[in-house]
């Protein structure tokens, strides 16, 4: 395609994607408790409020606990599964993989309702552990996909070489396989962590009235009127995601992690 048209088109997409973030970033700097753009008077007080006001600090804490634990759970489920699917050829491999990807392919509201009914039946409705497990299952797909890519990119010859030198199954895994897939583990964890932090519908259905996460807190606040604190949360979230993914790109090959050969 023509260079100028291409640049123009990409510029338009960029403007579309960045515009809401610029406005929100500007609004978060208002000195008064009003949402004006361009902001009137510059101040960082709303960022301070986010980190000092208990009404916001508790959801921040909840979200961080849920995201870090559920991403770990997702990784712990995905790692042995991806290893098994790579190491052994079994006829039900495709079924296992589909089971791991399924939660993510369906509209999340369905999965969320499934979890709601499940936890109500078991009597864990409203518990934070229920949210952690639900997110862990829901986001298994992400580490499963990155790890599968990681295992596939590893040749058989390297495993064969280790075995011919006398390494047993466990040693091969610990000293050869694990170090090679570590970047894929980290990126899988990072994806699951960031998406769990932003997830709304499952957290809301499973424990929305007892465990307030940040997205739930924002949505609840939307009904009582907008404050610049919400804008500062949005900015922090976008920045955090950008930092996490930039780190993933720094320590791994991002295009390859996303499926480029």
């Amino acid at each position, binding site marked *: 395609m023509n260079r100028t048209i291409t640049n123009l088109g990409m510029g338009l997409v960029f403007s579309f994607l960045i515009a809401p973030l610029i406005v929100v970033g500007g609004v978060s700097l208002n000195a008064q408790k009003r949402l004006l753009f361009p902001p009137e008077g510059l101040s960082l007080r709303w960022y301070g409020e986010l980190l000092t006001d208990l009404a916001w600090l508790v959801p921040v804490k909840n979200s961080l606990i849920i995201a870090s634990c559920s991403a770990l759970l997702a990784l712990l*489920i995905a790692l042995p599964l991806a290893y098994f699917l790579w190491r052994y050829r079994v006829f039900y491999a495709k079924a296992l993989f589909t089971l791991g990807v399924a939660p993510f392919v369906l509209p999340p*509201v*369905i999965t969320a309702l499934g979890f709601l009914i499940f936890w109500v039946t078991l009597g864990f409705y409203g518990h934070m552990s229920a949210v952690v497990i639900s997110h862990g299952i829901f986001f298994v797909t992400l580490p499963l996909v990155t790890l599968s890519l990681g295992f596939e990119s590893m040749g058989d010859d390297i495993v064969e070489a280790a075995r011919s030198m006398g390494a047993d199954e466990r040693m091969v895994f610990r000293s050869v396989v694990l170090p090679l897939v570590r970047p894929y583990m980290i990126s899988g964890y990072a994806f699951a962590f960031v998406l769990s932090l932003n997830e709304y519908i499952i957290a809301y259905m499973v424990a929305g009235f007892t465990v307030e996460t940040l997205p739930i807190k924002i949505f609840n606040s939307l009904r009582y009127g907008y404050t610049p604190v919400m804008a500062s949360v949005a900015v922090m979230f*976008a920045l955090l995601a950008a930092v996490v993914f930039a780190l993933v790109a720094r320590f791994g090959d991002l295009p390859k992690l996303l499926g480029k050969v």
Partner: protein
Amino acid sequence: MIDRSPRGAGAYVLAFGPGLMLAVFFLVPFGIMLLVSVAEAVKGGAYNLAFDGSHYARFFTPFFGRVLGFSLFIALLTACICITVGFPFTYALTRLGHRAQVVWLVFILAVLSLSEVIIGFSWSILLSRTAGISNLLVWLGLMREPVAWFPGLAALLCGLTYLGLPYTVLILYPPLSRLDPELPEAARMLGASPLRSFFTVVVPAMRPAIVATVIMLFVFTLGAYLLPQVLGRPQHWTLSVLITDQAIFQSNLPFAAAMAIFLMGVSLALVLVTSRLNRRAMGSP
């Protein structure tokens, strides 16, 4: 050659643990949901196991038909907008240098991970009267006074496109970056203009990927729950809003479950059709 058949209990434990977790926490909830969808609703959010098809019968009311029709319409429209913008964009992205691609991908991933709540909030500010882009247009002299562009259908479409576009790019990225660069080049050599080689070579070669992406986007948008509430008017509420409303506020779990099962049926049918289409496309040269 490495032994490819699992031997001994140790190998099976690897698959058994994760498989069990997924079965218990994913398949079982679906099983229960299926049971609940034919249960009797009891006041206060509980249910009695029974065989009661009345929840499914409620689908045939004009109200439900209207909500379903609107949900399908808005999902299809969003999917079409996203592919129209996202496909040429992703193609251009894959032709960039490695460094530029990494920067773009970090940005796309950051936008992708934004919560629906944050997207709804951001767009409602962007389209608001006090802080929105209409102020910019007034400042430029293009408009007389700032106006609010939300809630409304256009605002909802903006939000849904914003939600779906990064997703589109990431689904199209692997097939497009694997596309042989010699293919469009060959067309150029034969005298086709860049635009023409894009439409006559790249687009047809990617047809299975395009169809698959549209269907995945369609299913994805069907599940949007917050944006219709934040950016739309009540007549723009989708099936997902209805499901949540029934489950949480009307405490009618059986009816919510029946709607979810129905939505899942629609989604699964579409996913199956896609994989069938893709298999056929890959089978033929």
